[in-house]
């Protein structure tokens, strides 16, 4: 399971890096989204991978080994919300730039041949 997870995160993040190095804003934002997915998965994985173990329990007297670490899950929730908000902000900005410059190049103008 770990190896599949690691490859998935790595491939997603790598694709993201390739995309953010491209010159068009649409590619850039897709890359940013992919990177944010990969990062969120990564944080999740840092709490170790468990199967079939709940993170929360109403009982106070428990064996912590039988439960998943709830903290990374909490962190991921926050990270998703923040990442989503900032990416949405970027999208607005992108549309503004497209409208104002008439180009979707990140420099705001088409490269001269």
């Amino acid at each position, binding site marked *: 399971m770990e190896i599949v997870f690691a490859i998935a995160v790595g491939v997603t993040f790598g694709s993201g890096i390739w995309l953010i190095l491209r010159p068009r804003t649409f590619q850039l934002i897709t890359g940013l989204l992919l990177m944010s997915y990969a990062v969120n998965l990564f944080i999740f994985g840092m709490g170790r991978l468990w199967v079939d173990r709940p993170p929360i329990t109403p009982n106070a007297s428990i064996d912590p080994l039988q439960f998943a670490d709830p903290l990374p899950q909490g962190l991921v929730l926050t990270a998703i919300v923040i990442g989503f908000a900032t990416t949405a902000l970027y999208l607005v900005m*992108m549309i503004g730039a497209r409208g104002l*410059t008439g180009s979707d190049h990140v420099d705001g103008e088409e490269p001269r041949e």
Partner: protein
Amino acid sequence: MSAMSWWDHLIVLPVVMPLVTGALLIPVNQKHHRLKFGCATLVSVLLWVMAVALLLLVDGEHWPKGIGVYLAANWAAPFGIALMVDRLAALMLVLTSTIALAVLVFSAQRWGRVGVHFHSLFLFLLMGLNGAFLTNDLFNLFVFFEVMLAASYGLVLHGYNLNRIRAGLQYIAVNLVASFMFLIGVALIYAATGTLNIPDLATRVPVLRPEDSYLLGIGASVLALAFLTKGAMWPLGFWLPSTYASACPPVAALLVVMTKVGVYAVLRVWLAVFGDSAGALAGFGLVALTVGGMATLVFGTIGMLASQDGARMAGYGAIISSGTLLAVIGQSGGAVLAAGLYYLVGATLAMSAFMLLLELTERIRPPGASLLAVTMEAFAIDDKPEDPVGVVIPGTLAILGLSFVGCALVISGMPPLSGFVAKFSLFHALLDASPPGSGGVTPTTWLLIAMVVLAGLASIVALMRLGVRTFWASGAVTPPSLLASEVAPVTALVVLCVALTIHAGTAFDYLNRTVDGLKRVGDYSERVLGQSPVTRAPPAGGSR
């Protein structure tokens, strides 16, 4: 069972107050900009008062060991989020609120009226800055960084034109990627140590297993990438000059403070986690900081000489000051920190004043000179809707010239102002700090000193060129009409730089106490982790 005094709530107010006020101002129509300005000014003044009060309380040892701890939502650290104020945090709060107040007054007549939500974004930015200085938890630091950045994205675009959009596209993309780095770093540190609370981390680092300390090292390096992107270390700081140059002047002055947050975060985490007590990991990454800082100095120096435009020059000036600080931290691991902090305060004040001043000096130039700017803005939304109204003051050229000279002296580190005192004490401390018996001063130290001197030389050359071109240019200089509300903040900041020079003794006493406190890492762990939540006597006959 500590009872909580009212003073303790002062620690959380610098975060809560701007948040609430900023949110309340959003639905208010832009027509009531006077009301908005009034609210924002009130909050900024209160923030300043609170920051000074915190500084006095901390310095007066109101809290044991000069460290005030506030447990958010009454959860004990390290499970909950602890806010903490010590001398360093209090100093940064005072610095931020001083500059914020100046910026707000400066923007009263013009920039605050252009576009919408300037005051809300401004307050959110303050909230993020204050939170980043006060927080004691890495993930919480991330949240405050994001608050600060999100507000700054809006502010960089304030007065929407083509230039700002172009710079904003790059600024936001770079910072989003840096945020991902931050998250990866935080996740790795959590995986290695199982905690994100900085003092708790400090207690766990010395007893880490070797395989975990590798992971921690990787995590800390990735985290440092995020901090140093904010702090504009070469090669992570290419976004900075064009962002500064295109942001409107009040915002650029605030961005100067934001750059310092990166340096502050590095300082905070490194001194606590990788201090002398960290065992095998003590001094981790300091070499990289030195080399990076030096490279930044070179980059800033060359950029300073190469730039024609004042705002761009100021951007490179900020890069130089970041580079100096980082190299000094890396070179000495905190031994010369007092001088470094003095440099930070002086340079930040002067740089902010310079940013504000640039807009005023632009008005001196004969109209032809700004033709390019006019054509560039012809297709964009007009960001100068009306001639400024308000009290126009006499003797403008003299005031502008004097302020310019003041800023230039501080930025380049010439006597007699605080820049010189800072650099002199830096060199003195660097030469003193060489370990005894190691054969005197190391070549790296000499190299660093030479670079800082050269950077100062480049700054004075570049600034003189700009000054000559602005003030002594052709006979076509027309004294611009300036408003009292625009000149007062600039003058106040310059006067503060002068005051910092005159009271250098007092400032250094405080900074020495700051650095002494920072070195006692054990005190932080003891205070933050030892803070017990408030317990309330159960109500009589309560069901729980």
